[in-house]
């Protein structure tokens, strides 16, 4: 039983179920549903892959390992496996000093859950010496309003006993006392 106009589509292309309008009439005055909550959660086992596994194994030994592309010579840290310029695997492992230059930074004024750091604080991109890619880190042991581009910094590692296959082994970066780097020396990495 339906008084709904049937779609003019050819047979087999469309089907429209019969609607009983009396059911709709019975809903009159019923409180409408304004929102529903449908929690969704999916769990995954992360695959680090060949290059990132090498990087994380290096971390567990207190080493910052980059990988060089044999074609363009750029050094990525961490490498995700492919040179994004040439599309070939990065296979030459390069141990980098945990000293570098701040190329960019921001002052964080918003609290993130689980961070446990007093705001405001500075997050920065740091290019380790000899690398062509900046890593993300916190800048500490200096007031946030004194952080600047070109600032020379060193990694503050966790205690060796706490090293894991994790980038979090570098707790933060701090000024190493060297004079600021020339803009020319890091402008390619901004």
């Amino acid at each position, binding site marked *: 039983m339906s008084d709904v106009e049937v779609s003019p589509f050819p047979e*087999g292309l469309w089907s429209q179920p019969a609607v009983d309008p009396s059911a709709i009439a019975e809903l009159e005055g019923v409180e409408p549903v304004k929102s529903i909550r449908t929690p969704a959660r999916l769990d995954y086992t992360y695959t680090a892959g*060949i290059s990132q596994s090498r990087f994380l194994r290096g971390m567990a030994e207190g080493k910052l390992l980059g990988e060089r592309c044999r074609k363009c010579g750029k050094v990525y840290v961490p490498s*995700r*496996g492919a040179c994004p310029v*040439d*599309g*070939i695997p990065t296979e030459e492992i390069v141990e980098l000093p945990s000293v570098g230059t701040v190329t960019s930074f921001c002052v964080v004024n918003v609290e993130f859950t689980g961070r446990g750091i007093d705001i405001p604080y500075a997050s920065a991109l740091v290019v380790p010496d000899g690398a062509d890619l900046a890593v993300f880190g916190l800048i500490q042991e200096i007031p946030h309003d004194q952080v600047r581009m070109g600032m020379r910094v060193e990694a503050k590692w966790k205690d060796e006993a706490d090293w894991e296959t994790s980038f979090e082994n570098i707790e933060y970066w701090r000024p190493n006392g060297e004079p600021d780097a020339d803009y020319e020396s890091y402008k390619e990495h901004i």
Partner: protein
Amino acid sequence: MRDVAIVGTAQSVHARRIDDRNEVEMLMPVLQELKDGLGVTQADLDFTCSGSTDYLAGQGFSFVGTLDGVGPYPPISESHVEADGAWALYEAWVKIQTGAADTALVYSYGKSSPGDLPRVLSRQLDPYYYGPLWPDSISMAALQARALLDSGKATERDLAEIAVRSRASAKDNPFATISGDFDVDEILAEDHVVSPLRKHDCPPVSDGAVAIVLAADDRARELTDTPAWIRGLDHRIDVHAIGLRDLTDSPSTRLAAGAAGVNDGAIDVAELHAPFTAQEVILREAIGLGDDIDVNPSGGALAANTMMAAGLVRIVEVANRISAGTAGRGVAHATAGHCLQQNLVCVLGAEP
């Protein structure tokens, strides 16, 4: 219309689990093999289109990460579909038709092993009515199989025979996840996974990648002596809500097959993307394939079902047979969504 051909193909082994390589590391050797085989570099390819989904490996912007493996610098013309690579091929084919490109790289990949695939696939459903119930993909396919059995169009034995034939065919496919000789009576004696589906009615979960190069007209003839020409290409969708569909039929496949001109000539080979046995019965009927046609000589999706790649792999399997001269004209089909909701049909031939 421009004549467009598949001039080169490559695929990885579709393994149950690739846990030593991430997505780009899994894809890169396939791209390299394809380009080296054709003697081209990324600079020779006017357009690049990929198909994948972040939900499989749980990797945000997965396709951006895998673009690194293409060599996208200097900047390339690039696009992505959140769909099987067969739809990426469609976009690239349209791009070539517009004249904006003469060549295109199309690839897709899926790494399903990091997650719980049947649950992950439930996220394709609408978030209000079906999604909150978390119906897994096997249960959805079971509804379809039950409807088919109840209609009298097939028996459980027919379905078991499809599984046995597919996995025997896959013995010649070095990329398959599952292959071998199975016995119909033995597998019919097994318990149901989700009634009426037994394990053999379901596809394996596979990790892998596939890639092709498309080229138009004379450019195709320059790149290979044996292009597999796209003679027809069309894709259609059925309504999303399962309850509004006759699950024993696939009107969208029938329309796509008609528009692609499947039955305008004889068919030597058909590769159907039917992850579940019952779906092969439905697709054969919708496309209008006779019993004499060689269906899924690769083993099909019952032998290797890399999500987002298995549809494009069907096209590759037909193209390879045409390029090898073992088939003159063939049809490939790709599907997406639950219970054959979206369907693409591609007709390939040795002549443009």
